[in-house]
């Protein structure tokens, strides 16, 4: 691996003797594609299992927040260009409001985003929900269509969250922007899926199937790559934003 970026400032919130972990050592050596800008130049390392008080973890000067409890936290970051990035284990994504954290951090950097803030939050919430539930936890949303199915769905959810093979899979939210657009990517490490070409209206009494249609309604453009494991959502920024 060759040096590709100047090393970031590293802030470790990890407890105990873990130190920086492999991820932190790679970052300290400048071997990870961390971008810095006027808003952020710091990498925050945390432990997602039982983490509390991480809602402000992406406040400037933080640019990246990485959960050291993830499986292979350094994998694939070069495919996620981002000024702002959080990668957390699936278990941490369930127990913490990653979406609220990201939207708050974006608002600190893009103060004119207010008028689209709720759209961004709604779309991002659906994307993270899909990444966690259907991606990393491999749960079939159609199960929720009946009471018995709902019980089976939630039992499987809890069982898999406690299983490190599922619970440690990372969910990544990566945001990048310029003067006119905000692009947010969400990636999981599940088995992937084939997204529908179009989203048809969902009956009010349906228990599932709203998420992707809602995302498409809220974004200027949506695309899926990596066999459905990565969604890219593009939003037009209100006039007045400066990159």
């Amino acid at each position, binding site marked *: 691996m060759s040096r590709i970026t100047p090393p970031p400032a590293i802030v470790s919130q990890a407890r105990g003797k873990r130190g920086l972990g492999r991820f932190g050592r790679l970052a300290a050596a400048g071997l990870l594609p961390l971008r810095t800008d006027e808003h952020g130049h710091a990498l925050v390392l945390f432990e997602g299992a039982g983490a509390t008080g991480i809602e402000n973890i992406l406040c400037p000067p933080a640019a990246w927040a990485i959960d050291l409890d993830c499986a292979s936290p350094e994998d694939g970051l070069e495919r996620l260009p981002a000024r702002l990035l959080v990668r957390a284990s699936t278990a941490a994504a369930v127990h913490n409001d990653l979406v609220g954290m990201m939207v708050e951090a974006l608002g600190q950097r893009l103060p004119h985003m207010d008028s689209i803030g709720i759209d961004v939050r709604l779309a991002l919430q659906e994307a993270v929900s899909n990444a966690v539930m259907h991606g990393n936890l491999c749960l079939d949303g159609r199960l*929720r269509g009946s009471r018995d199915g709902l019980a089976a769905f939630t039992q499987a959810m809890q069982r898999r969250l406690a299983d490190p093979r599922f619970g440690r899979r990372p969910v990544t939210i990566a945001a990048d922007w310029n003067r006119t657009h905000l692009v947010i990517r969400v990636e999981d490490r599940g088995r992937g899926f084939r997204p529908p070409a179009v989203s048809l209206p969902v009956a009010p009494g349906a228990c599932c199937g709203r998420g992707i249609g809602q995302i498409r309604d809220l974004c200027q453009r949506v695309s899926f790559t990596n066999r459905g494991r990565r969604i890219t959502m593009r939003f037009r920024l209100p006039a007045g934003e400066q990159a």
Partner: protein
Amino acid sequence: MKYALKTNGNTAQLNISGTLTFAEAPLFPKILSELEAAGSLNSLDIRLGDLSFIDSTGMSLFVHIYDVSQNRNLKVSVQGASGPVAAALERAAFKTLFEFK
């Protein structure tokens, strides 16, 4: 998310506060069981004044409540939804399922 189900005779009130998202899904069967165990009800008021955010998984709880109401001839009304919660329920056309106050 926090919830509280209170009954008074044939009526019940379900208060839901905080955020109602996929992370709360494990609570849904419990809420539905409590609702069914509440005895013979004629009406249920769902109060959402302190609910700040909901996603599509959270909305599926209301679909199950609707199914319960259909099976038990229960009149359900939704009160206090505002901001993004009201917008999400409106977008999902839940006004065709419940009375909104």
